[in-house]
């Protein structure tokens, strides 16, 4: 039984996405990664946005390192920073498991606050990587980084499933179907996948 990496906990949740606060500063999974949340009613999401900022929105970080040698030193000289800064990431919900089956569409109810957010195993990634319809909702979502998220997911899937034949071309084809008449958009996304 492979232990899954646990990234953090859900602090905001709605039908379309959930926000995870990371346990450790800067340790959010990369853009496009597939993550899952919830022990019994598992919900799957793709990391679509990541941010690090002060825990207290009224306190902004100030530049502190002018006289210091390295960036590392800034954190060493002000140890409270790691407590006062917070990394969190948003995940766009793309599927859920009911029983043993994984459905690649929105779950009926969003994840609970304080659910643990974890990395996914190969089989889970494969399920999503071979049936990319769910990326349609990301492509239509209006977030400015949608195309990058889609490309990042494909790169993530390719990296996690190096032994699956023809995955790259298959994904490219599915994206072409999803994008229909937007050939140039497809082109720019495919360039980010190579």
């Amino acid at each position: 039984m492979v232990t899954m990496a646990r990234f953090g906990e859900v602090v905001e949740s709605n039908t379309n996405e959930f926000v995870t606060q990371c346990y450790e500063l800067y340790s959010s999974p990369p853009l496009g990664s597939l993550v899952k949340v919830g022990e019994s009613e598992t919900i799957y999401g793709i990391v679509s946005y990541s941010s690090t900022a002060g825990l207290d929105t009224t306190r902004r970080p100030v530049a502190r390192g002018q006289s210091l040698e390295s960036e590392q030193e800034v954190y060493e000289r002000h140890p409270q920073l790691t407590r006062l800064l917070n990394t969190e990431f948003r995940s766009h919900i793309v599927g859920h498991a009911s029983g043993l089956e994984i459905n690649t569409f929105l779950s009926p109810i969003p994840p609970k606050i304080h659910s643990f957010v974890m990395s996914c195993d190969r089989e889970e990634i494969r399920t999503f990587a071979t049936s990319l319809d769910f990326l349609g909702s990301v492509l239509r979502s209006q977030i400015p980084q949608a195309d990058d998220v889609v490309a990042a997911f494909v790169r993530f899937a390719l990296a996690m499933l190096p032994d699956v034949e023809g995955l790259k071309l298959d994904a490219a084809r599915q994206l072409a179907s999803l994008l229909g008449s937007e050939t140039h958009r497809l082109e720019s996304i495919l360039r980010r996948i190579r």
Partner: protein
Amino acid sequence: MALDLSETALQLDSMADGLKNSVNDSNIRSESASTLLDDFNAKDFEARINLSSKVFNWSAPSFPLRPAESITTLDNPVDYLAIGVDGSHIDINRHIPVRCFLINTGVARLRYGESPNAYLASTPHLFSGLTDTAIFDKSNSNRSIPIQGSILGAVRTVEEIKTLATALEEIDPVESQLPVIGLVDGTLVMLDLLRTGIPDYVIRNILDDGFLTALNKIKQMSRNRKVVIASYISLPGSTEVMDGIRLLGCPYPKSDCLQHCGNKSSGERPCDSYALGLLDRDVFGKRLSGGQRTEIFGSSSELVKSYYEDNEVRFFYVNTGDEIARVEMPKWVAEDESSVSLVHSLVADQCRLGSGYPACLMEAHEQAVISTSDRSYFLNLLEEVLEGQNMRFYTSRKDHSKRIRWL
């Protein structure tokens, strides 16, 4: 209703004009005061105090041998632990029919050096019920005073010191090899208790059972480890030393203020030429360069002299680089030279790290602070709890009008 800013601006302008004139006078006085410090003679001063203390209008603090000294710290500790504590509270609101108050203490424990880390936390403590929300006379349980207003302030300070003591106790063995400074914000002199009308049993209760007990606990700890505590006062408005300078500069052998200057108004008295309108920090501001501190003075407060004993409050002024701050510490810290050095260098380092204010105190404050929304959230929570117990929650019209701003 809105503030008439244009009218206010006019008034501010005329005030500024007046100020300019007074600045010049201040500088002259400051110079004179400074000179007195330079010429200080401890024996003479002691004699003066003995002679005049009963008739002198002001209380002079105890002076060090050489009050004119400006001391630079040579230490620059790299590995140390700074623990800052601060508190805030939600007062009993007389508009709410429940006796309770909330004190929120914040702790910031910052470790510097080889393995830097930080621990930040806040702990709320709800005081409710008759016994917890009032101070009782031990000799006469019928006598009690509800904890509110300035007494609440004092209780809060006690909580802060207790929290500091606990935090110092909880340092794990590995870290206990490091030098530690515990800092609180504000004066160690419980000025709140000096108000008239506060009975003695209250003072005893707060000081003896609370404040001083905690300080003694810390003193115990300091026997085995390098632990020092101090309090930091930013922008100190104290004139304690200036009051002593008045005595120094008084032309009369016996400074009988009533006799010599009873009919004189402020500004006409001889000592005014050294001290009128000046704060301690004004004079020391001109003498201390960045990082330097003054010698140690002793608090002139009667309260301190009566109750504090070994915890008598000592203080020095220090130029943090951004301001002249007042640092107070108990006698048992002040008497140990290495401890004083430690306080001096660590406070200086903390202020550097905190861009002008000790970093651990800033973080402690952030942990302790109760925002307006938290405040009203607490009240809502209270309302829910009470309603759950079927107690109607009604407020006075004034409170209602403050809470709901209506047109």
